[in-house]
């Protein structure tokens, strides 16, 4: 699980072009949206694409993202339970 969390942090920084943010800057429990990393709605769509592309998880309802993308901790847990690749 720890490796997956680190992997997710790296992917998020790369996919969302988070300049000047490193893996070490993101805590597992930090909010990804709002006051946390300050991600926006387009970022949420990019994360949905990332789930599909890298883990084979297709979100049928984009609103699910609100729960799944709460934090690295929650996201990693969801991916570990639902990934098909």
């Amino acid at each position, binding site marked *: 699980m720890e490796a997956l969390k680190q992997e997710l942090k790296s992917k998020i920084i790369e996919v969302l*072009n*988070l*300049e*000047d943010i490193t893996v070490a800057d993101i805590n597992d429990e930090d909010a990804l949206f709002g006051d946390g990393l*300050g991600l926006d709605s*387009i970022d949420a*769509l990019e994360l949905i694409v990332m789930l599909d592309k890298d883990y084979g998880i297709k979100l049928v309802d984009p609103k699910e993202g609100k729960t799944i993308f709460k934090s690295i901790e929650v996201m990693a847990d969801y991916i570990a339970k639902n990934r098909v690749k």
Partner: protein
Amino acid sequence: MTVNKNYIHSFCTIQKNTVFLNGEVVFTTEENSFADFSKKVYKHFEINYPKFFKMDNLSKLAFLGAELLLTAADENSAENNTALVFANKSSSLDTDVKYQSSISDSEDYYPSPAVFVYTLPNICLGEISIKHQLKSENSFFIFADYEPEFMENYCNILLENQKADRVLCGWVEYYNEEYKAFLCLVDKKGETEHNHEQLKKLYNK
């Protein structure tokens, strides 16, 4: 219609790894890509706007030019009714091509929402408007070449009809690592008269 004189308050040009402000070189570097060059400009002018790094190259180019002109002007003015009138030749083709390549393989079909949102040229106007809190007139035109006569007329109409207190206008062209931005901030005060001869001269400087 009697047109009062308008003036070029300030202007900037960005091309070939160099930034000119009012005709003077204010930053130059040697980089192999626009991505590296634009990042150095961002850092050099101490711009703090993380969303910059999510923009496509056309928006980055327009944003940097606008930043140089509007940030200085905003410090001296409470006015925020600044219209934006931009034009270029290649529209958003650079990003369109990138997006197309990302969806051309049906076996590897993962269209990027973050790239897709930049597949219109006028998105760069939105980025500038968001940054500077502009709720003003804005237009983006596609021309084969820079058209100073059109820019002069369009700016004059906006100012004379009180659609704007000032206009940020010019050329923002980006395609395949070839780029040029030439932006002018036009208002009713200044020393350099705003007319097409002057615009042509400054564009070609």
